[in-house]
């Protein structure tokens, strides 16, 4: 599914990732753990092609992700820390736009259904600038469940959520896992990592420990 080889990244000569190499198999859930600033988010952003790496190679579904055509990343979905949506647009508008850009537009009724499921029924037409941290987190999960993907890169899916939200997200992640989809999840909670993940990658001093 995904094969990352020798990815390195420094910021002002300070190495954050040092020759990172790993594979993700089809249907596998890989948890990434590590201290703050260990480079977990950086790694996901490099795979999502949002951040450039200094060197290395990434194959996604056997295609060159870093130098290949943009269509190579069609079945790759990145859900980061920030919502990656336009503050002035509503949840529905943002999701419509993001899904259309991915080449898989979805009707409003389905979007509304998902927003209902994630508890955003009443705010679905409000601009997301007024959303709280937890609401944005729910919105991102709604996006992930609407988009079509084979590999999901998701950065701390539980942050900022209340207990109800945590249960929702947990359910979704388990559902995707059952469907045989591949995921890479950045987590901090050890017990949750063991429960969700098939494998845990620990990043320490820029290396996989």
């Amino acid at each position, binding site marked *: 599914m995904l094969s990352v080889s020798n990815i390195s990244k420094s910021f002002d000569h300070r190495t954050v990732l040092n020759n990172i190499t790993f594979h993700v198999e089809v249907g596998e859930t890989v948890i990434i753990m590590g201290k703050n600033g260990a480079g977990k988010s950086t790694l996901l952003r490099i795979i999502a092609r949002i951040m450039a790496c200094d060197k290395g190679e990434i194959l996604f579904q056997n295609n060159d992700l870093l130098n290949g055509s943009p269509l190579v990343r069609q079945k790759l979905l990145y859900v980061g820390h920030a919502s990656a949506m*336009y503050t002035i647009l509503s949840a529905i508008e943002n999701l419509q*736009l993001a899904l259309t*850009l991915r080449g898989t537009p979805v009707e409003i009724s389905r979007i509304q259904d998902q927003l209902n499921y994630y508890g955003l029924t009443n705010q679905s037409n409000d601009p997301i600038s007024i959303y709280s941290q937890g609401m944005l987190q729910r919105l991102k999960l709604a996006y992930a469940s609407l988009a079509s993907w084979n590999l999901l890169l998701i950065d701390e899916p539980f942050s900022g959520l209340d207990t109800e939200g945590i249960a929702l997200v947990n359910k979704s992640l388990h559902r995707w896992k059952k469907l045989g989809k591949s995921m890479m999840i950045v987590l901090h909670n050890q017990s949750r990592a063991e429960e969700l993940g098939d494998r845990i990658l620990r990043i320490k001093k820029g290396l996989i420990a």
Partner: protein
Amino acid sequence: MFFTLLKKELFVEFRSREVTLSMLVFGLSIILTFALSSNVSPTIIANYAPGMFWIMVLFVAVIGVHRTFSYEKEFDAFSMLISAPIDRGFIFLTKWMSGFIFLTIMEALILIPFFKFLMIDFPLQPWIAIGTTLLINCAIMAIASLVSGIAMRARLSEVLLPILLFPLVSPVIIAATKISGSIMVGDPYSFWKIWLLIILTVIVIFGLVGYTLFDFITEE
């Protein structure tokens, strides 16, 4: 995809109106400064009017283009565009097109204050003036969108943008002033043909360069 992106640019602006409105207000204050710093009389101003107009447009373009790129950084919205499976050259093309549209709207609104406050006569051939102005807008925005795309993630982007843009855009400003000056006094086409060619060259070259380079410079 191009139209989806363009629609988003226009829709975001339609919602917020922050780009066009700030361009317009900034433009008005520049006109005020021009008027106050020179003795407004038709004989004096007529010579400088084309230059003043394009200086104003350039300043205003910097404000606008900086804004259209900086709202992309709120909530990391830009990563929605660059991680999407689309050719990043389209991001450049839509930023360019929308910038062109906003600049043109702003000019349309500011035209009457500009001519009336500075006591300039309207050009004799308005359609030619409008046509050439549109082409010049297009050329300015081609360079401005490219430079802004380069500078947007840099620190001090608001400083680096004009510092890099003004010298790069100097051929367009020369050509624009010459064309407008010629049209204001009713010179025939043959007088300013060369300048139009320079404008068209800029549009083609920077369009192509921007389309190609955007794939490499949009990543963090």
